[in-house]
């Protein structure tokens, strides 16, 4: 498998690129940290009354694209006018790019988790009465998990490209020790 392919496996499961490269502990640690961050984030901002939640933040997600499009048309004219090119670009990235940033596995797990009844058991608030500040903290955690996974993907690419050099350096170190 070429370095790009190895690193892009991180888009499926965080840390998978490192695991393929033989760095199992590092890969597992990345997977656990990033998954925990994402799940913590969506726990603080779960779906409430079928309209909100982290996944509905930009009115639609990849699982509800048609329903989301309907919702977008139901916005007021004023709301549509206020959406500038940066908002539109960010919405596009968030809907279509973000699942790959955070890892498809995590995105799917988070989506199933936030809709489940287990969230109520963990949350200190009622699902429909979560303070806005707590929702914002949740969004920060979930977005941060995606950005950190991008760094992990880049690290896996770097390791895959320089694998031979690193192995030679390690073996020469062992030989000299």
């Amino acid at each position: 498998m070429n370095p790009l392919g190895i690193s892009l496996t991180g888009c499926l499961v965080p840390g998978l690129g490192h695991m393929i490269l033989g760095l199992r502990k590092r890969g597992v640690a990345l997977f656990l940290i990033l998954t925990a961050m994402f799940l913590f984030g969506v726990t603080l901002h779960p779906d409430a009354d079928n309209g909100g939640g982290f996944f509905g933040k930009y009115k639609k997600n990849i699982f509800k694209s048609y329903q989301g499009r309907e919702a977008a048309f139901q916005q007021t004219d004023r709301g549509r006018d206020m959406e500038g090119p940066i908002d539109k670009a960010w919405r596009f990235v968030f809907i279509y790019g973000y699942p790959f940033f955070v890892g498809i596995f995590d995105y799917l797990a988070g989506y199933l988790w936030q809709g489940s009844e287990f969230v109520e058991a963990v949350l200190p608030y009622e699902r429909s009465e979560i303070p806005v500040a707590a929702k914002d903290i949740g969004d920060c955690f979930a977005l941060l998990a995606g950005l950190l996974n991008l760094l992990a993907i880049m690290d896996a690419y770097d390791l895959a490209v320089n694998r031979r050099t690193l192995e030679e350096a390690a073996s020469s170190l062992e030989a000299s020790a």
Partner: protein
Amino acid sequence: MISAGFALASLLLACLCIAAVYALISGQRPGRFGRELLVGFGLMVGGILVLAGVIELLPVIFGGA
């Protein structure tokens, strides 16, 4: 409204997670993970405290308060 403790704990948890990922991908030997984690965490929390202090002091320095 959320409590100050919850907000502070969230901030520290986020800093810890970022520092852990940084320590994992910084290219250091596995034995130095703890040191990298502490350095990353300290720099982040310290930087936030310094920034908060500077932002609070700005009005005093420039006479806006």
